[in-house]
């Protein structure tokens, strides 16, 4: 299929948003390595963080094939205002309940997003999306098992999970921040748009949480997590980028 220049830049915008989310959350979740609540979970969570970096890399490679810089430069060479990740993924790891809730809300959305993209008219993207189906299935299975376990556990675990949900849920809506590129992506059959994804996601999250004692909080300000897709970020992103790119900034060609 042939795309117009405007359509190409809409596709690039979509892939940057997805890749940056995966890169930043992958980095965030990897901060638990060695510090996880128990050894087995430490290994599982770290391994999934690595999967996320793998997804980011695959998406940057698509961008590279579309004429952008190489994956390393895209991941490590862009300043804050050029990043397109949403605020939700930028927040520090906090307590494990927060990281687990974020992992659940994010990966459910990612899994649905990749499902939708499996039918994309943009072949490079649909092939890549289908490749990660298995990994994402495990990620959501892992998240759902933990959510079920802790929300039906004792009072302490349920209260911690409810607090985490109260913080995470409004921010998670930032994943679906409306973008100018949406309409063009829908028209060209590349992606059904953020609004459609958000509807599917709400349905799925409602369905899973209805089997627990957790209550989805009322969201007064739907735009609370918006801005990331336009390059406006939280105070947490810059320190993260500084830390993540420390070696790259000393020697961009370092190998290890």
């Amino acid at each position: 299929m042939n795309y117009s220049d405007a359509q190409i830049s809409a596709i690039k915008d979509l892939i940057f948003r997805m890749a940056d989310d995966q890169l930043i959350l992958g980095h965030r979740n990897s901060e638990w390595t060695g510090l996880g609540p128990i050894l087995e979970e430490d290994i599982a969570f770290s391994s999934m963080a690595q999967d996320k970096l793998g997804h980011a890399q695959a998406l940057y490679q698509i961008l590279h094939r579309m004429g952008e810089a190489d994956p390393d430069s895209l991941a490590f060479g862009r300043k804050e205002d050029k990043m397109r990740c949403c605020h939700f993924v930028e927040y520090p790891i906090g307590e494990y309940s927060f990281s687990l809730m974020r992992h659940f809300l994010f990966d459910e959305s990612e899994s649905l997003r990749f499902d939708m993209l499996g039918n994309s008219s943009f072949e490079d993207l649909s092939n890549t999306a289908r490749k990660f189906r298995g990994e994402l299935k495990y990620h959501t299975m892992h998240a759902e098992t933990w959510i079920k376990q802790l929300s039906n556990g004792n009072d302490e675990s349920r209260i911690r999970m409810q607090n985490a949900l109260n913080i995470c849920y409004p921010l998670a809506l930032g994943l679906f921040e409306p973008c100018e590129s949406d309409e063009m992506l829908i028209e060209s059959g590349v992606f059904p748009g953020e609004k459609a994804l958000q509807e599917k996601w709400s349905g799925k999250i409602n369905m899973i949480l209805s089997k627990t004692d957790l209550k989805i909080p009322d969201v007064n300000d739907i735009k609370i997590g918006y801005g990331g897709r336009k390059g406006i970020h939280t105070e947490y992103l810059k320190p993260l980028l500084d830390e993540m790119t420390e070696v790259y900034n000393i020697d961009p060609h370092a190998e290890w």
Partner: protein
Amino acid sequence: MSIKSIDPRITREELPEVPDNSPLKEIHHWQTYEVFHQAKTGDHHVHVGSLHAPNSEMALILAKEQYARRYNCVNLWVVKTTDIFRTSNDEEEIFQTTPEKIYREAGGYKVMDRINKFKGK
């Protein structure tokens, strides 16, 4: 005073320099599960190790990353370690047999294993 490390993640945790070694509460003691791994459909499940988990559902999702992350796997079993009924170590003698009874050993299985292995190549 908290630990200052060259790893910024550790410093951020504000971990006490003297670790808290007080005994864990009962709820933090999880049971162990034994994990069995099947490399491809039709193969035997092979015991690969054990792990901690509060119940079998959690044991399965943790087993997947501990034991099926790097190698081919199509199926996993987890069994509560205490559910395995086993011979005790001082009963080991019951397996001893006189060398003259070689005719009773199931040597055919060993040969079959080798034949199957060869066929598999």
